[in-house]
Every structure is written in C-alpha cells, then in structure tokens.
C-alpha cells in the first residue's frame, strides 16, 4: 500500500513562508488596484522581487530540513483544517515559475508601462493585476494540500488567465477567450465532481490522508477518470486542444508568455500531484498508456500543424500543443517503472525537467515573437529578412529556446528527454522513445526554418519599424539561456525533486 507523503502533520520551521508565497502576490494585487495607474506597476514589480526572495527562502528551508515544508493553517489539523505542503516537486516548480514571472515582469515594463503623468489606462492596470493573480494562484496550486483549495486555485488561475487573452479587445480574441473560459470551466467542474466523489467515499479532501485511504474500487476509478479528464481539458491535451492556439496567439506578447509558459503548467502539475500522490494505489498501466497515447498524438499533430502555420505566434502556439504531449509521456513511463517494481524517480524527474525547460523556453519564444512584431510590423514567417542584423540577441534567444525544445545537449529539454528515453528503454516501452525522437525532429524543422529566414540579409534601405529597448532583448536572452543551460541540473548533488516524497519512491502496485 502506498505510504503517506510525510507522516507527521505539524508545522515545520519554514512553513510560514508558504503562506507568504500565496498571500504576497494577492496583497500586491489588491494594493496595486487601489493605487492604480503607474503606481500599480511599481507595486507589482516590488511584489515580484519580494515573492522571488520568499520562494528562494522556501527552497533553502526545504534543502536544509531534508523533508517537506508543511504549514497547518489556523492550527486546525487535517482532515478538518487545511494544510499547505511543499515537497521537492512543488519547490522546484515554485522557483522556476518565480524566475519566469520576474523575467516577464521586466519585459512587460515596455509594453505595459504607464509613463508618469499619463492617466490610468485599461490594459496596463489589468495586465499587472492579473500577472500577480496568476502568480498567486500558481503558488497555491503547487503548495496546497487540500483538493477543494486546489479547485479554488484552479478557478483563480482561470479567472486570471482568461482576461489576458482578450486584453487588446479585438473580437477574435474575445471569441477565443470565451471558448477558453468554457473549456476551462468544464474542466474545473469535472475536477470538482471527482473531488466530491472522493469526499463522499473516503470522508476527507486532504492529499496524504487520501493516499492512505484510497483503494482500487469503482468510485476511485470514476473519480480518477473525471479529475484527469477535467485537467486534460484545462491543459489542452490533444483532443481538447482546440481552444489553445487562437487564445495564446491572440494575446499580447507578454500575456502569451504567461499563458503558454505558466498557466497550463498549473493544471498539469495538479494532474501529476493526484496521479502520483492521491491515486498511487489505483492507477493501472493501461490507463497510463492511454494518457501516453494522447500525449504522442498531441506531439505528432501539434508539430505537423505548426509546420503549416504562416504566422510566427500561431506556430509557437501549436508548438505548445506539441510540447504538452511530452509532459504527458511521463505518466506511462513512471507507472511502467512502478509496476515493474523499480523506482519511478527517473521518469518523474524527466517530466518535471521537461515542464521547467518548456516554461522558460516558451516564455522566451513568445517574448521574442513580440519583439519581432514590434520591429517588422508583422510576424509572417515567410519574410523575416534582416531580423538577425536588427535584433541579434533576440534571434539568438529564439535559437537557444528552440534548441531546448528540440532537446539538443546541454539544454534542459535534452536532459528531460534523456531521462524519459532511458525510462522507456528500461521498461521496454520503446514506442515512446520513437515518438519523442520524431517530435524532436519535427520541432527542429520549424525552428530552423524560422532561424534561417531571419539570417537572410534585409532588403536594402529597410529600417526597423520601431526601436526595441535593449533590456527587453536581454531578458529574452536570459530566459532562453536559463532553459538552455538547465542541463547542468544533473550536476546538482542532492536530488531536490524527491525531497519529502516517500510515495513515489517505493510504490508497489498490487
């Protein structure tokens, strides 16, 4: 039987930081809303800095204590009260998301900055408030230990992300925002239905307590199926991906980076959390293979359709659909390892690294696309001539991010694919390795197409439409470098991701 995540339910020393990590972004949002105008941006940037410090302190506390960081809210122990838990997986995602959001914050100072003396405008204020709301809800998704609090976190994430899609107010973006909202609401209501079933049968919504009580019975399978299908709708896995490309391509550059890089990671992480922690004893290999199959289909369909795109932002959006497929290949490999009695750590680490490197690379790519649009006045892939000379750092960043998506060494994508392929080989599921390599090949095709086109010399007498500030290019390059150099994580002595996780280490399936 699976063991509880961490046996004792008592507040650990670093626990208060978890509460701060959730509430600081929301407090910053509320104060920024009252001040409004230019001051909202300054409040937001200050909150970003404070939040980054808190997240680093949490990581330090986790590594220091060597076990999950826990905080019992209000002193009421679960199952009655709510506990916040941050194990290795949560902290790694917290740090990665904090870095990407700070990068986006610095990048967005140019697009959504309000110079002093200018009256408060709609888009800048909304962007800064919703950026902090997305961050607060993501931190809550990573840290909460209660299924209903996670449902409220999912709703917070949806309500913060949908207005970002229709920020510039054109009717197509409003239409894709409405379609996104309907998919996301269907997803979260199915997730809630699964949680309700679990409470009806096991009497608690706390994840470690559920991990002990859940037995393989019809109600548990129904709850698993409902929750996972709901989260698939929110993460836009293959059959349910129709809403993603128009939504992510229509949004402004900084908002697209938030949507593609961060928002879909929230519901994906929740799927990982319930698959490996709550339903560790219930999941079967065939169900995991089905998830893997959907992931493989997403990789192939997403990449093929991306090849046919004429606009750069839509190309990157369909590339997101494909990369989401990689994230779901981790499930059959981990369950295959567990059912073979081996340790599923390799596959879980591979999946997490894939998620982190994709977050950084995709955010860098969308921000680069924003700079391309600002310089050329359009983002048609056909004629990107003269871009390399106009924006050298941005094209380099795009290439590095593309290399990380393809999986060239020493990038984070390479290390993730290496771990996943080695897991595939040890469990003799060779077809997943084939799919990954094919996906990498297809990704490399459209990345090289774009990069080669930008290297072509510009028409004579062509001048960039509007100058792009250097710090924006520097931020894009920094994020791309982070993703590119993530492969160095293999040198990290202690396996940070597995701290405080006893469940997935020795899950012996019946």
């Amino acid at each position, binding site marked *: 039987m699976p063991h509880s995540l961490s046996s004792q339910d008592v507040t650990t020393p670093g626990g208060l930081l978890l509460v701060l990590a959730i509430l600081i972004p929301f407090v910053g949002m509320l104060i920024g809303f009252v001040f409004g105008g230019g001051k909202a941006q300054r409040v937001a940037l200050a909150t970003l800095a404070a939040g980054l410090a808190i997240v680093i302190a949490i990581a330090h506390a986790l590594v220091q204590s060597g076990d999950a960081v826990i905080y019992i809210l209000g*002193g009421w122990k679960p199952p009655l009260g709510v506990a916040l838990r941050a194990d290795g997986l949560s902290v790694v995602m917290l740090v990665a998301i904090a870095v990407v959001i700070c990068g986006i914050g610095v990048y967005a100072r140019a697009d959504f900055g309000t110079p002093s003396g200018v009256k408060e405008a709609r888009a800048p204020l*909304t962007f800064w408030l919703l950026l902090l709301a997305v961050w*607060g809800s993501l931190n809550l998704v990573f840290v909460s230990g209660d299924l209903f609090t996670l449902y409220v976190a999912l709703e917070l994430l949806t*309500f913060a992300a949908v207005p970002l899609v*229709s920020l510039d107010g054109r009717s197509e973006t409003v239409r894709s925002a409405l379609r996104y909202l309907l998919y996301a609401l269907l997803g979260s209501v199915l997730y809630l*239905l699964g949680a309700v079933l679990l409470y009806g049968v096991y*009497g608690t919504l706390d994840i470690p307590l559920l991990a002990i009580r859940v037995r393989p019975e019809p109600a548990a399978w*129904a709850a698993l*199926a409902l929750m996972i299908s709901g989260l698939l709708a929110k993460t836009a896995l293959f059959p349910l991906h129709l809403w993603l490309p128009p939504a992510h391509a229509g949004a402004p550059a900084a908002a697209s980076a938030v949507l593609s890089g961060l928002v879909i990671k929230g519901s994906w992480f929740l799927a990982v959390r319930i698959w490996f922690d709550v339903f560790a004893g219930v999941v079967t290999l065939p169900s995991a293979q089905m998830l893997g199959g959907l992931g493989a289909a997403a990789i192939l369909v997403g990449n093929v359709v991306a090849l046919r795109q004429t606009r750069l932002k839509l190309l990157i959006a369909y590339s997101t659909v494909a990369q989401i497929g990689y994230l779901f290949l981790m499930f059959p490999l981990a369950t295959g390892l567990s059912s073979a009695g081996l340790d599923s750590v390799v596959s879980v680490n591979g999946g997490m690294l894939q998620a982190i490197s994709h977050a950084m690379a995709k955010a860098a790519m969308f921000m680069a696309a924003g700079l391309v649009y600002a310089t050329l006045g359009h983002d048609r892939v056909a004629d990107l001539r003269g871009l390399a000379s106009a924006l050298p750092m941005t094209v380099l960043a795009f290439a590095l991010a593309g290399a990380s998506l393809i999986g060239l060494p020493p990038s984070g994508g390479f290390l993730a694919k290496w771990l996943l392929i080695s897991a595939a080989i040890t469990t003799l599921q060779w077809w997943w390795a084939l799919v990954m390599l094919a996906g990498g090949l297809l990704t490399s095709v459209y990345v090289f197409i774009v990069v080669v086109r930008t290297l072509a010399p510009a028409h004579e007498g062509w001048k960039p439409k509007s100058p792009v500030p250097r710090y924006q290019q520097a931020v894009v390059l920094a994020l791309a470098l982070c993703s590119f150099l993530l492969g160095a994580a293999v040198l990290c002595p202690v396996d940070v991701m597995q701290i405080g996780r006893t469940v997935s280490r020795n899950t012996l399936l019946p």
Partner: protein
Amino acid sequence: MTLALAVDIGLALLILAMAAWTIAVRDTFASVIGFVTYGLLLTLVWVRLALPDVALTEAAMGGGLTGALLIGAAARLRRTEATVRERPGVLTRTLAAVLSATVTAALSFCVLNLPDPAPTLAPAAAAKLGSTGVGNPVTAVLLAYRSMDTLLEAIVVLIALFGVWSLAHDRFWGGCPQLRTHADSEGILAYFARILPPIGIIVGVYIFWIGADFPGGKFQGATILAAMWLLVIGAGLAYLPPISRIWLRILLVAGPLVFIVIGFAGLVTAGAVFAYPDGFAKPLILAIEIALMPTLVLALALLVAGAPQRMPPQ
C-alpha cells in the same frame, strides 16, 4: 415515511423535467426563464435535504443573481437568434448523448454504492465548535476551520470583477457601468424600488447577523443587499459610481485585506496564521464578516452590471 418520499420523488421529477426542458427548448429566452425556475426549484430540494444555509445561497445566488444576469444577456441577444441556426450534426449529438449517458450511469453507480456508515466530519466539527465561539457549524467551517477558502473566495470574486472590467472599451475606462434598462422614473418600477429596498436592507442585515448562530451568513446577506442596490439602479433612481472612485476601490479591497491582517495577527496571538486567540474568536470573526460585507455587496452588484459603458458627467 412514504409521504415524504413521495414529495421527494415528485420534486426530483419536476427538477429533471425542468432541466430537460431548459436544454431542449429552441428559443434561448425561454431556456433562460426555464433555468431561473429550475434554480428556484433547486432551493426546495436544499430545504428537503435539510441544508438551510445552502438553500438561502441557492435562492439568492443561483436563482436570483444568476437569473438576473442571464435574463439581461438573453434580452440583449434576442436579435441574433436567427443567425445562429446550424445545429451540430447527428454524429456529434449521438456522441454527446453517449458520453453524457456513461457519465450519468457511472455517477449513479457510485451514488448507489456510497459507504453505509457515511464518513463525516460532523463530530470533529462539533467537538471544536466551542472554541470558535460561533453557534452555526457552517459559519465555523467557513471562517475558522477552512478560513483560507473563504479568503480565496473573496479574491476570486474580485479577480472576476477585474476580468469583467477589462472588457470595457478603452475610451470608457474609469467610467460608470450601467444596467441597460429604460425605466421612466414615475413608473411602477420606480414606486416598487422606493418601497422594497428599506425592507430588503433590514432582511439582508438580519440574515447576515444571525449567520453566526443560525442558518444565514455574509454571502446570502450581501446578495440580498446587492439585489436591492441593483433594483434601485435598474429603476433609474440612482447611478453606479465610476470605477476610478478611490472610495469604491478601497471598499472593494477592504474585505480581503482586513481578513489577511487579522489572519496574520493570529500568528502572534494564537501561534498560527488564521488562528484566533481563544475567547476572542467571535468578535474577530464578526470583524472579518463586517469588513467583507461591503466588498461582497459592491463586487456582486458590479459583476451583474458589467463593464463600464459611459464616462461620468464631468
């Protein structure tokens, strides 16, 4: 016992018939009316299930505000009825029917096999009720045991409001939202809007106040007060404030901020965030609820009113 069961069966059949009619009927406006009736019937079901707090919330929020929102939208969209005529093909309909049937069958199977000594947290909640100083166990759960959910709840409503406001046209930013009603100020609605609000305010505050020890609470009370405000504005007797007003923003933000301040004060006095020093639980809970009331009343009414459409008269 069979009489009560007969009533339940009748109510259940009535609700299923109303839901099926709401889905199946062609005209959208009729469907919205069907949904409002469905919401009010659902309130009866909550009363039959002996959950009065939820019945109040469903009547106020599910039947009332959601109904007002949908009727307002359906009335404005009536003219586009003709354009969207294409119904999905037979394949889609059968697939949807099969999917719905399997979900219903699976859920019915789960409901029939729920464990017999139903697992419950009622004893645990009752045991610690004394220390929260609140008589109504639901309010104790909302504001003591799981107070983080209620705080996030208020933040969800505020973020939805930011989302609704972000849909305004740039030229109207900072302006006033308005209810699209063409009521003349001498008509019957104005007369109604002068009689009902005083009584409604008393009822709303009463429901908010008894929430500590009897079924009621701030969500239900705030919804009633928001409905009264909307009635006055719908009758044309008052106007919504422009969203750039500083007092409006401070009131909108006051609820969650006071909640967080009291929560962190609990860290010092009672050793954990969102904990209450014993003996001071009830006054602190009341302070939080009083701070949350204006936030919820303003936010719920402004959610129904929608995005700003008009600049304030200079």
